[in-house]
Structure formats: structure tokens, C-alpha cells
């Protein structure tokens, strides 16, 4: 991370767009070095996240979508500070009404915020340690951060287990005794035990069966109301995002291409990539088969270590013109909280999902 500037030395008062904002990500960059040879000489950077900006309002569910490899998980991991971002700000409005830049904090300084920003993982099997009981899994964070003593911990774990729909008697069991849906509930309990304000759900329901997925989605919505949670919901499943999110951020090769409300992004996409993505989603009724209207994207997703010039999407874009290969479009606001990074956002007449 040699590229990193030490922002702590320069004192600038941090400010957010408004008081309703819980988290504001500004020009976030996460570049992973690509090394070569025995001495690990750096021969290039994989720009997994390259200049990403968005904000999350208090109490909302923000969706983060894109194809695999677009950097959506990396953004989530930067926010929970599993990664030290290369550059940019992650402004967080903390519980005592201060604004802190999570990206600028070092390992020690970030510790108090670990309980505020929590994560739910994709795979309910590999994300629980098989050698720890349910109690140990859920209470570990309380123990490590000295947030409760033994008897308080037991009460808290029992309470949270009930809230996620598991019987408190299960507290001494090991994860292998549970089904996928139950394990995911344990993962949710682990995330919520510290009473967080922001929960990053990284493909939290992708590994579950349809009937279980509906149960978990309903549970997440109920818990959001009960605990005033804010979710960053990372998923590649556009039907799930449509169901649960208030606003949606679409990413392509480490960049944000479009931000809009949950309905607008589906019915009124302004970026050609979003349009193609929407047309590829299977609609669950044979009467709505969109034969012939589907947009075929040519080629493959660009390589983030060697992206194309100009707009990263231009080699696959059917509306691409000369300027697209020369100039990278900036993310700009079209009004009504609809932001797009496309030179021709106003001129193009794009088709969204037809509502039934």
C-alpha cells in the first residue's frame, strides 16, 4: 500500500452531504499489486475498485450490483475495513454524532467501529468455525471487544437467537447440526449482537434455496425495522435487489456506472450497461418471455488490471461513439437522485424492465 497518503497528518474538518447520511464513500480506490518473481517485484496493479463514490442514508437499504469481478465485494470489504483502501474516504457518521474517515484510521483506531459496521457473509457453511459452538461464534465479538461479561453475554446471545428465529436451547450446539438457512440465521445473529448501525450483506441469500431465501429476506426486513438498521446489500441477483433495496448502485469493472432509486434503475435505466443487465434477467413468467428483445453483450468483462481507454464499457456498448473510447465519462447527477456515468445519458432512449 505504498501509494497511500497519510491523511491523518493534514487536518481538514470532515463534512458530509447532509445529516441523514450514515456513510459516504468518496473516490474510493483499492488497487491490489500484481507481483512477479521471487522478490515479488510489482509489475502492475489490479484496479479492483477505482474511484467509487456513493452514500448510504440512515435506515435505507442500498443495493450494490454488478457481475462477478466488478469490485462490489471489495467495496464492501473496504467499508468493514477488512482491506486498507489505497485511496479515498469512507466517511462514517458515528453514534456520538461525529464524522470519522474509516479509510484513514489504522488498525487500532478502527477497532471501536468494528462493532458499528458488521458483515453477513455469503456461504453459511464456510463462514462459521466448525469448532466453535453457536454461543462462541456469536459472542466472540463481545468478548474480544470487552463489550459484556459472561452472564450478560449469555443473555444477549439468547435474546438475539430468538430474534433471528432460532431456539435459545441451541446455544451449545455446533454449526454442523444446522441447515443452511439456520446457519445463515446464526451469521445474522453474529452480525447484530453488537447492535450495529450499518450491516454489509455480501450475497447474504445467494447460497440459499428459494423457499429459505424468502424466509431470510423477510427476516432481514423485519430486523431492519426493529433495530433501525441500514443495509448495504451486495448481490448479483437483480430480483432480490429489486425486492429489498430502496436505491441501487450499479458497478462495472471497478467503477460506478449508475445510481438510482430501486424502481428507476429497473424501469428507466440511463446507462447502456444497466440496460443490458436488466434485459438479461429472466422474468419468472413464460408469458413475459422477451424473445428477440434481449441485448447481447459482445465480448467479455474488461480486465481491471488492463482496462480499455475512455469509458470501460465502450468495447461492448452498442451505442458507443468516438468520444467513448477517448474520454472517461464522469458520474453526474441527472436530477432526482439519478446519477449516470455516460456521455450520452440524456440522448439515449433505453428500455427497462416492463412492469406487469
Amino acid at each position: 500500500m505504498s501509494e497511500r497518503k497519510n491523511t491523518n497528518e493534514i487536518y481538514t474538518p470532515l463534512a458530509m452531504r447532509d445529516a441523514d447520511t450514515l456513510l459516504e464513500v468518496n473516490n474510493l480506490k483499492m488497487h491490489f499489486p500484481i507481483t512477479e518473481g521471487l522478490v515479488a517485484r510489482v509489475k502492475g496493479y489490479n484496479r479492483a475498485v477505482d474511484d467509487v463514490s456513493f452514500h448510504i442514508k440512515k435506515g435505507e437499504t442500498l443495493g450494490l450490483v454488478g457481475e462477478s469481478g466488478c469490485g462490489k465485494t471489495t467495496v464492501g470489504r473496504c467499508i468493514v475495513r477488512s482491506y486498507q483502501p489505497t485511496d479515498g474516504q469512507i466517511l462514517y457518521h458515528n453514534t456520538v454524532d461525529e464524522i470519522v474517515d474509516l479509510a484513514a484510521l489504522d488498525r487500532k483506531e478502527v477497532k471501536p467501529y468494528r462493532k458499528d459496521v458488521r458483515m453477513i457473509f455469503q456461504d453459511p457453511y464456510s463462514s462459521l468455525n466448525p469448532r466453535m459452538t453457536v454461543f462462541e461464534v456469536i459472542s466472540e465479538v463481545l468478548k474480544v471487544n470487552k463489550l459484556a461479561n459472561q452472564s450478560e453475554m449469555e443473555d444477549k446471545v439468547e435474546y438475539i437467537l430468538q430474534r433471528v428465529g432460532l431456539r435459545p436451547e441451541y446455544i451449545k450446539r455446533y454449526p454442523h447440526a444446522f441447515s443452511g438457512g439456520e446457519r445463515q440465521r446464526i451469521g445474522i445473529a453474529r452480525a447484530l449482537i453488537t447492535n450495529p448501525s450499518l450491516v454489509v450483506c455480501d450475497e447474504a441469500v445467494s447460497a440459499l434455496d428459494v423457499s429459505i431465501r424468502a424466509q431470510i429476506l423477510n427476516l432481514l426486513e423485519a430486523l431492519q425495522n426493529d433495530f433501525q438498521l441500514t443495509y448495504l446489500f451486495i448481490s448479483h441477483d437483480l430480483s432480490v435487489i429489486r425486492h429489498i433495496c430502496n436505491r441501487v448502485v450499479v458497478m462495472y469493472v471497478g467503477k460506478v456506472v449508475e445510481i438510482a432509486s430501486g424502481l428507476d434503475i429497473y424501469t428507466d435505466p440511463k446507462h447502456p450497461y444497466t440496460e443490458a443487465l436488466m434485459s438479461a434477467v429472466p422474468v419468472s413468467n413464460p408469458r413475459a418471455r422477451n424473445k428477440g428483445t434481449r441485448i447481447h453483450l459482445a465480448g467479455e468483462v474488461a480486465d481491471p488490471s488492463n482496462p480499455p481507454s475512455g469509458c470501460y464499457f465502450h468495447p461492448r456498448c452498442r451505442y458507443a461513439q468516438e468520444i467513448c473510447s477517448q474520454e472517461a465519462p464522469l458520474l453526474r447527477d441527472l436530477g432526482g437522485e439519478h446519477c449516470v456515468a455516460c456521455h450520452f445519458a440524456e440522448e439515449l432512449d433505453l428500455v427497462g424492465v416492463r412492469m406487469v
Partner: protein
Amino acid sequence: MTEIRKILDVKDLRVHFFTDEGVVKAIDGVDMFVESGKTLCLVGESGCGKSVTCRAFLGIVQPPGKIVSGDILFYHNDEVINIAKLPPKGKKVRSIRGKEISMIFQEPMTSLSPMYTVGNQIIENITLHTELSKEEARERAIHLLDQVKIPNPGRLVDEYPFRLSGGMRQRAMIAMALSCNPNMLIADEPTTALDVTTQAQILDLMLALQDEYGMALLFITHDLGVVAEIADEVAVMYLGKIVERADADTVFNSPKHPYTQALLRSIPKIAMKREELDPIKGMVPNPFRRPDGCNFNPRCPYAMNVCRERVPGISHVDANHTVSCWLYEQDAVEEKAGA
């Protein structure tokens, strides 16, 4: 396209797994048929036995699993072959596997061998089943890769699978599966590991190739969106049994079995107003302790006494729509009594 005929007829198939903890009845009396030129989707949650069913069709059920009874009749050149009765390692079944019936697996990352080039793996299948020489087989492999729209097939034929992306690997798998002009193609969740845009490409490709080759497509998936997109007919499986079978439009718009209805209510729909999801209550029962009577009765909102005691038979709603549920057997019984 040639005329539609039955090419596979499955009668009362049972596959049981004899584990140390007990017997798992993974498939417990499946009746189904597959027709040429049509796409049949087999839907169900994980563990319902859909993958085991199609593995049985190829005689590749893994131990401790075993076909314990039933028939898998494969119609081939006026000959009827009962795959269920063939020894799984015998010559006969091996001449069908990969030639007459071929299969595409879910994981394009693990189903290709990392030790051989893509071309080698396709050529192996061609030389094994046909009289073509190695050079001719290579020509054919390149032609197939071109047909599945792999760019620059002449170069990619000599590449190892790790050089290809997920979508490209799945295309290579399809090329391999089609290499001997199969009568039937079994696709086990072929797009589940892919992104939506790639998934759309692969689905369109498979349908186009089906039109061209006129083969039957048995498509296994848990994604009802995909089913709606490609299926002619749909068979819904729950715990080792087919609970409902009809054409796609009927299954989605007037499903009869409570499980099918519940399944459809539990999925988030992209093109509709947001409303709360209605999940199926309870969980899939433990495989060692299946409920008595109808398998679905502990989760069924309409469960009656008879459902907890006896297994329902198959009722015909109309000629092409069958359902296995007491609600409809009861109707049939009353109708008969009335007449």
C-alpha cells in the same frame, strides 16, 4: 425439426443411498418421459433428487447410491434399451453415455480436466464414439467451438481450461456434449455459476443449438426465472417425487400442487410491485426421517388427515397436466361418485 416422439420413458424409478446412518430414498418412485425436440425443466430445491435423477439416466449414480427398482427406457433406432438394468460400467451403457445422451454439469471450473487442452477433451469424446480419425476429429472440434461462438476457435482448441473464463468454459462443455450429435442433452444447472449476462448468452445458445440438432433437452435448475425463460414443459420435484408436471404456461399461471403454488409465491419478482414474500413454512425434512403419507404434508397449508396417512397417486388435471396431491384425487373420487 423432426416429429416429436418419446425418447426416454421412466417408470417408477427408485434410487436409494445406503449410508452408515441409514437409507436415504433420494428418488422414490419417479415417473416421467422426455420428448425429442422439447425442453423439459426439472425444478426443485436442493436435495430433492433432481441431480440424482439425471445421473441415473446415464448410469452414473455414485456409490453408496444404487438404482433399486424401476425402468429407464431409452428409445433408440427402433430399439428399446432399459438403462436401469444395464451394468453401469458395461459396454452398452458406455456407448450411450456421451454419444446418445450427453450431459453438461454445473461447475464449468471443475468439470473440465485441468491436465488436458480443451481440444484434447473434445477429440477424446469424438474418437471414442465415432470412426473419425484424429485429424478429422480435430476439425470437428474446431467447428463445434465455432458453433458455440467461441472466438478464434483455431487457437482456443489448444488452450488449457484455466485460460478460459467461466462462460467460455461452459461453451466448451456444450461443444463437447454436442460432439456426437446426441439425441438427448442433460444440463444440470449449467448457468447457476454464471453471471446474468453470460447466463442469457448460454441459454440462447442452447435453445438455438436445440433447434438445429432437434435433440431433447432436460434442463435441471432451481431458478424459476430460467425455467420461465426456456421451458416447454416443467416437472416439479419435491423429496424424490415429481409432484406436478405440465406445460410452462400452466405451471406458472395455474399451478395445482400446493408446493408449486408456494414455491412461486416465495420468489421475488423483478417485474412486479414490491410485496412481502410468502415463504414456505418449515424446512425440508431430514432425509432419514421422511414424513408418512404425502412428503409435503408437514409444510402444506391444505393438509388433510389422508395426507398424513397415505401417499397420493397421480391425478390428471387434463391430458398434459398431472399432479400428485390428495386435493385432486378427492375431486376425482367425488366426480366419479356424482356420475
